C-alpha cells in the first residue's frame, strides 16, 4: 500500500518530480565531479611515488620534502647512501620545474633520473632517456616524436605516460639527470634527492631520511587546502541536493495534507504514511543518483582537471543520496504525521 500510493503520486506529479530529479542529479553530479577531482589529487600522488619506486628518500637535512622544498646537493653523495646498511641501490634524482611552449605555454614538473637507475623507467624507456629523449605525460598534449620545448631547450618526446602528474594535474616530464642538470641547474652535477632501493636504517649526517608516506605527504601539501575546499563544497552540494529532494517532498506533502488526513481517518496507520513519504524521497534520491552518474560521465571530459571517480564513490552515491534524501524529508514526514484526521471532514475543526 505504501509503495502503491508513493509510486502513484510520483506518476501523478511526474513533471514536477522530473524537474526535481534533474536538478538534484545535476547537483549530485557536481558533487561527484568534486569527489573525482579530489580523488585525482590523491591518485596522482600515489602514481608519482609508485612510479619512482623508491624504498627510501634522502634529502638535504634542511629540506622538508623532495617535491615542495627541494634543496640541491652534489649528486655524488649517492655514494654515501649506497654504503648504508639496508640499501641495495641508490641514485640521485632531480625534482625540478620547467616552463614549456609546446603545445602551449605552461609549466611542467621536471624529473631528472639516472637512466635505468632508481626512479627511472626500465628497459626501452630508460634507453630513450639515455639518448636524450623526454618521456612526457599525455596530459601535456604531445605524442611520441613531437618536439618539446623545456625552458628554451628542445627535446623530442620518446614515450608518453598516462596519469603521471602532480600538484593538481601539472604534467610530469622525465629526462635524464644530466639533461635536467643542464636545463635547470646550470649544468652542475647536483641533485635534489637520493632515492634508494632497500630502506636505509638511518640517515647519514647532513641528510633527512623520508619514507614513501612522508613523500606522499610532501606531494599533498600544495593541494591540501584545495582538497579541503573541495570537500567543503562537496558537502554543500550534498546538502543542496538533499535540500531539493526535501523541499519537493515537503511541498508535495503540503498539497496532500487533506489526503493524509483522510487516509488517517479511514485507518491508515501513521507508520504507513511515514513509510510512503520516505519511500518517495528514497526513490527520488535514487533516481537522482543514477542520473547523476550519467551526467558526471558526460561532464567530466569537459573539465580541465583530471576527474577520477572511484568505483567506491559510485557505489556509495546511491546510499548517501537515499540517506540524505530521507533525512531531508523528515520535515515533510513530521507534517504528515502531525496532520489532524479531522481535517478530512470539510467543516470539522
Amino acid at each position, binding site marked *: 500500500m505504501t509503495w502503491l*500510493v508513493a509510486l*502513484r503520486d510520483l506518476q*501523478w506529479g511526474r513533471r514536477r518530480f522530473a524537474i526535481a530529479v534533474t536538478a538534484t542529479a545535476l547537483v549530485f553530479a557536481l558533487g561527484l565531479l568534486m569527489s573525482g577531482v579530489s580523488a585525482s589529487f590523491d591518485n596522482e600522488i600515489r602514481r608519482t611515488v609508485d612510479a619512482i619506486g623508491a624504498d627510501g628518500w634522502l634529502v638535504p637535512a634542511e629540506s622538508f620534502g623532495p617535491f615542495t622544498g627541494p634543496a640541491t646537493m652534489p649528486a655524488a653523495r649517492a655514494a654515501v647512501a649506497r654504503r648504508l646498511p639496508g640499501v641495495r641501490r641508490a641514485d640521485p634524482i632531480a625534482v625540478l620545474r620547467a616552463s614549456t611552449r609546446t603545445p602551449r605555454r605552461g609549466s611542467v614538473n621536471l624529473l631528472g633520473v639516472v637512466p635505468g637507475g632508481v626512479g627511472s623507467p626500465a628497459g626501452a624507456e630508460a634507453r630513450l632517456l639515455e639518448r636524450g629523449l623526454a618521456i612526457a605525460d599525455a596530459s601535456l598534449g604531445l605524442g611520441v616524436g613531437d618536439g618539446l620545448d623545456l625552458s628554451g631547450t628542445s627535446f623530442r618526446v620518446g614515450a608518453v605516460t598516462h596519469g603521471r602528474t602532480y600538484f593538481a594535474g601539472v604534467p610530469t616530464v622525465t629526462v635524464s639527470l644530466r639533461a635536467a642538470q643542464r636545463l635547470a641547474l646550470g649544468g652542475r652535477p647536483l641533485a635534489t634527492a637520493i632515492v634508494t632501493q632497500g630502506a636505509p636504517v638511518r640517515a647519514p649526517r647532513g641528510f633527512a631520511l623520508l619514507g614513501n608516506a612522508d613523500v606522499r605527504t610532501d606531494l599533498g601539501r600544495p593541494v591540501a587546502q584545495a582538497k579541503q575546499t573541495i570537500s567543503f563544497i562537496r558537502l554543500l552540494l550534498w546538502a543542496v541536493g538533499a535540500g531539493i529532494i526535501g523541499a519537493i517532498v515537503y511541498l508535495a506533502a503540503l498539497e496532500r495534507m487533506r489526503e493524509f488526513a*483522510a487516509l488517517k481517518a*479511514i485507518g491508515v*496507520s501513521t507508520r504507513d504514511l511515514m513509510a510512503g513519504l520516505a519511500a518517495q524521497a528514497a526513490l527520488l534520491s535514487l533516481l537522482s543518483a543514477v542520473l547523476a552518474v550519467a551526467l558526471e560521465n558526460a561532464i567530466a571530459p569537459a573539465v580541465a582537471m583530471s576527474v577520477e571517480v572511484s568505483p567506491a564513490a559510485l557505489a556509495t552515491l546511491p546510499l548517501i543520496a537515499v540517506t540524505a534524501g530521507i533525512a531531508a524529508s523528515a520535515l515533510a514526514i513530521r507534517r504528515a504525521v502531525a496532520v489532524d*484526521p479531522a481535517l478530512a*471532514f470539510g467543516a470539522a475543526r
Partner: protein
Amino acid sequence: MNLVCRDVAVEYSCGTQAVRPIDGLDLEVSSGELVLLMGPSGCGKTSLLSMLAGILRPLRGRISVDGLEVTRLAGGRLTDYRRHRVGVVFQAFNLVPSLTAAENVEIPLRAAGRGRRQSRKRARELLEQLGLGDRCSHRPGALSGGQQQRVAIARALALDPPVVLADEPTAHLDRAQVGRVARLLREIADEGRVVIVATHDDRIAPLADRAVMLDEPAAAPAPARAEAFDPALGAGAKIPVYAAT
C-alpha cells in the same frame, strides 16, 4: 450491534470564546438504522461524526460501538477501530487523486493487511455492486461527482464495517444522483449496519429511520439542545429526545 452516546459534549474555541455545539448528547442507534444528523451550519453535525469516527475526542461523555468504548481508545487500537469498525464517506469525497477508483477502494484493505490480489478482487466487486464496474481504472478526476461519491462509499464499505458515517454525502450531487446515493445509504443500512448521515439535504429524509436535529451552538458553558424528529411525521413535528444537562 448498537452505537451509544452518553452525555457527550464537545467544545472548541472560536476566537476568544469557547463554543460548545454539543453538550449532553445522548443517542442510541441500532444496526439497520439510517439516522440523519440535521441542523444549521456549526451546530456540531460534523463534530459528532468526527467523534463517532474516533477522530475527535469529546470534552466529556462516552461513545461505544457494540460495547467497545471508542472514547478510551488510543494508538493502534484507535487505528484498528477506524479501520475495521467504521467506514467514513467524506463531503469532499477525499479520494486519492493519483490512484484509480479500484486502488482507492483497495487502500483500507491493503492497510488492514489483505493481499494485493484479494484486495483488488474485493474492490472490483464493490465497485461493480455500485454500478462502477467499468470505471475501476479511472482516476477520480475522470469521474463525475456522483461516481466519485460511490467510489468513496465503496471505500467506506471495503472492510465491511458495522458503522458507516457520511458527511453531507449529497452536497456536490445533482438531483438524480441524490436519489441514487440516498437509496444506496438505505440499502447499506438494511444490510444490518448503523448508518449515520450528517446532512442539510432533507431529500434523504424520506428514506431515513429518524433524524436528529442539532441546535445552534451555544457559548460554553451554556448547554446546547439536541432534538430529534420523525421524518414520517414531517419536518415540523419535532420530538425532543435529548435533555440538556
